[in-house]
């Protein structure tokens, strides 16, 4: 069980601590605290109490809390100030580092928090309170917090065993050295092995492995590589079979963010298809996979051409649907690395404008192409003939 704290200036928000504790089925124990101290005092308190994680509301200053000695409001700070104080202490003592979760209202997160990238770097996870109104998101949030707390503990434990010196990332990711040599031998990833602070390691793992497809794949990208429709029956069975085949990722954060090793999937796929996964059409891939796994699966259909005979490869960054490279444009990513799978946005989302509200940016190299799609110069065959 991980012991955590939730800091919010509104007493009634205590229920989030209770809800997350309850839904975690004994994995989390979250206590609630009002920001009754000055920011440094509160940071000292949180570190001193050895919490496994801290969830903090963005606005800690909306309900004034006054000290006994006078009328001065003590809680005149926001989550980022408190988080900075905690991170500063972790630099001095990495063993006291802990996951920080921003748990706040959605519009604060969107309007203020995301506008400040330095504040963003301070937190491991951002959860909007609006999401926590039904069980499923609540369960996911609890799982991710648990996963983060476990990851920090894992890192600190490995460091402790290594006399507080950095360790190879393969140890943290659950790969043997041979496999690691093949998969992790990229400059940006090698650099992670030099980091001494747990929160920085988590930040890099998140950015280079968890949040972007490449070395690891999310469920959506897994289906795209297999050419399976998200609406297909038996997806749970498919995933169970693939886990049995050791294709699933079991390293840091795997419980909160299920992922698949691409290099293992690739090798397995070649064995099934006799060729790389990307070398056959979705319909063919699914036919062979269904046969090999003895599971009935439905092939994906292109949202542009409506055909299953496309060479599906990635999940669209806008709609998460399997899409083929030839009917998708390149998305811009400021933190792109060569070992990552570039973001792709399917032509359907470009045509209908669905990507507009997802804060996605089209890469300059595909801008002209996207303009032609937007303006009807390029249309699916079916639309042109109608």
């Amino acid at each position, binding site marked *: 069980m991980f012991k955590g704290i939730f800091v919010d200036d509104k007493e009634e928000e205590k229920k989030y601590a209770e809800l997350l504790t309850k839904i975690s089925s004994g994995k989390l124990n979250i206590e609630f605290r009002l920001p009754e101290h000055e920011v440094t005092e509160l940071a000292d308190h949180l570190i001193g109490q050895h919490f496994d994680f801290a969830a903090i509301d963005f606005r800690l200053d909306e309900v004034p809390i006054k000290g006994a000695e006078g009328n001065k409001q003590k809680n005149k700070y926001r989550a980022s100030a408190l988080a900075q104080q905690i991170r500063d202490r972790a630099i001095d003592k990495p063993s006291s580092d802990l996951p920080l979760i921003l748990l706040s*209202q959605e519009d604060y997160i969107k309007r203020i928090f995301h506008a400040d990238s330095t504040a963003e770097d301070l937190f491991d996870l951002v959860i909007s309170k609006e999401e926590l109104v*039904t069980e499923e998101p609540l369960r996911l949030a609890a799982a991710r917090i648990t996963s983060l707390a476990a990851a920090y503990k894992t890192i600190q434990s490995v460091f402790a065993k290594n006399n507080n010196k950095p360790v190879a990332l393969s140890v943290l990711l659950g790969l043997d050295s041979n496999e690691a040599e093949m998969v992790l031998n990229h400059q940006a990833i090698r650099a992670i092995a030099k980091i001494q602070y747990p929160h920085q390691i988590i930040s890099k793992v998140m950015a280079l492995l968890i949040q972007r497809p490449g070395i690891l794949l999310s469920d959506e990208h897994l289906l795209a590589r297999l050419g399976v429709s998200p609406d297909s029956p038996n997806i749970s069975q498919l995933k169970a079979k693939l886990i049995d085949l050791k294709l699933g990722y079991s390293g840091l954060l795997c419980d909160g963010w299920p992922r698949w090793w691409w290099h293992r999937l690739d090798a397995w796929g070649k064995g099934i298809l006799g060729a790389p996964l990307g070398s056959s059409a979705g319909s063919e891939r699914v036919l062979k996979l269904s046969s090999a796994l003895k599971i009935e699966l439905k092939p994906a259909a292109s949202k542009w051409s409506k055909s299953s005979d496309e060479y599906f490869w990635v999940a669209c960054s806008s709609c998460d649907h399997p899409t083929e490279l030839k009917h998708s444009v390149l998305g811009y990513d400021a933190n792109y690395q060569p070992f990552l799978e570039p973001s792709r946005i399917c032509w359907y989302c470009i*045509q*209908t*404008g669905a990507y507009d509200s997802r804060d996605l940016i089209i890469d300059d190299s595909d801008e002209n192409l996207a303009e032609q799609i937007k*303006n*009807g110069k390029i249309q699916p065959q079916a639309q042109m003939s109608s």
Partner: protein
Amino acid sequence: MKSDLLNTLKKQLSIELEQEHVDFQAIAELNKKILECDKSSVRFSIDARHIHRLGFELVGRQETALSELIKNSYDADATEVRIDFVAFDKPGGFLTIADDGSGMTEETIRSAWMRLSTNDKELSPISDRFKRSRAGRKGIGRFAVERLGKELILESGVLGELQGVRVQFNWDDVFKPDVDIGMLSFSIERFDKAPEAHGTKLTIVTMRDRWTEAQLKRVWKSVILLQPPYKVRRTYRGKALTKTEGKELDPGFSVVINGKSSSEIQAEFSLDKTFLDQRLARISGYIDKDDRAHILLESKKLGFSDKITLDRKFELVGETSFEADYFIYLPEFIEGFSTRTATDVGSEYGGIRVYRDGFRVLPYGEPRDDWLKLAYDTGRRNIIVPAHNVNFFGQLELSSDVNVLLEETSSREGLIENEAFVQLADFVRSGLEWAALRVAAARERKQTAGQKDFTSKRGKPSERVKKIFEDVSATSSQSGPSGASAVPADVLKEAQEEVQKIVENFEQEQEQREKAHLRYEELLRILASLGTSIAVFSHEIRGALNGFSGSILNLKGLLADLGAKDKAKKPIDDVEASLSQLNDLASYVMSLIAHTAKREKNEIAVHSVITEFVSQFKHYLDTRQVEFEVAINPPYLRTTPMHRSEIDSVLFNFLTNSIKAMDRANTGNRKIKISADREGEYVRIGFQDTGSGVDPAIADKIFDAFFTTHQYGDDELVGPGSGLGLKIVSDIASANSGLVRLGDAEQGFNCRFEFLVPAAIAQQ
């Protein structure tokens, strides 16, 4: 030496006087020479050529000269004057001006016509027979004829005489320099005529200038002022009237200018083409036997009619009626006249006259009378629409046996101003004011919300002023026999007044626009503060809803822990469902605020906006059992750059309207269809429903501010009608060069609104 000369002259004069056939010319010359021998005093003499100089200085333009001669006919109580040009398209033609006026005796010709600067019109400003207010400028007639041609034959005769008089003048040959005008004599010729014939005929030979169509038109326009624009009353209750307004019935005055050019083009103008045809609206009103007042309004020019029954009774007046023609003196409403001419007619003859038993009751409707207080209130801008006396030409009927309380004063100068009179004035004034305001409303209303040429119909002020300057330049290039190109003073004056009027009208319109703008700004301020409140409170409400939802989840967990039965869980599930619905709506408001916060304009992908809108309200519509259909073709449709929140607002307003309309229709078939397609260069969003539809009678008002058909209690969520929804949609359309309109609903639907905005440039 000089005394010898005087004696010689005396002898010569004595000899002349003693002869049997007196040589008057010789006597006049001797008389002049004798006077020159006077050593004790000096005398003025006038050079004969002075007539010519006066002609050109006093009567600059030939059309003014002709107008003056026509006015002379009017002043002489003529009922008709005929003007015939022969070969008028180049100098040298001739012209006759013949009237059936009172004519001149030989004595009148001698004492008045031949005498310069007579003050006859000053002494007798009213004509003898029809009591016309004399229009001609004093003593200018003979200069006018000299201005027009080289020779004049004057023929005139009076009623009852058997002979008329004819005199011939040869201006250029006789009126030479160094000749004293007093020494010039012209022989009188007498001719036989019928005793009932009367009138004057001027024949102008060898015209100095050519005549153009434009000049003839100006002559015609100048004579329009000579008589009232309305027909003079001739009967009352079926009986012929012999007198009206205390004088012999004026049968009217007609002018016919009939010339024929060498290109055989007939140019004919007649005053029968009445001024009143230019009316903007006809207003009529009556008080019925129940003392109720009804006002009717019809405007063919604006294409509408309306009526109203006043909200009070007029018990002291009795049955009566009035009718009036309403004029607004703007170029777009007055054809064939300059606005200056039309305004002059209004100043001279405008107002509401009162007739009692068929006879005019003065002073009502006279130029300085303001019995309806129209001049008072327009002057103080208590009424801002055109509603001065000059804007109306009308009359009111009274009868001594029906309107018994409305009596004339003993001096016969108006009605006794008792309570009945106050009610009467209130009746007419209320009717005219209502009609003027109604016309103003009709003029201001656009035909469609996005109509862009609304203010440009009459042309830009700068273009109209430019046209006036061009006209003035054209006049200067054709004026003057000497080839002088100076602009005649009266043309210049008219042009200045026209320009002044255009500027004043523009200022007035600007003022009205500013007022409308201020009203709208006020509305925007209210909406902005409302928006700020919504932004603040929606955040709080969203927070509260989250808290509520969390508490419900907690409660559910507790119930589960306690092993509660399904029966106990049901109410919690219901609360959860309602919360989910509220969360959907709160999310919509939050996203709207987020979009509104973004100030930049972007091309809007219609598919995405509509899809998101439908998904946002899906739960809400499901609970209200509304079936939703979306058809977007082509899917790539994008609008011109605009604010995303504007499209959201359009869809939301259409949606709330549809729900209200379907509730009102109380139909089991509740369907909404949103479609999007192209219409020319526009993106068209169609919004259809199975509601009650729009009554054609109010179709032209639904886009007006504060117009609503909804009542409180229609729908607790979508709220009562503010009357702003469609106005906002309409303003969004206008602001983006688009339009909103009612369209033809597809089969299965009762109402269709269409919102059109230009497509993205690349899609046009």
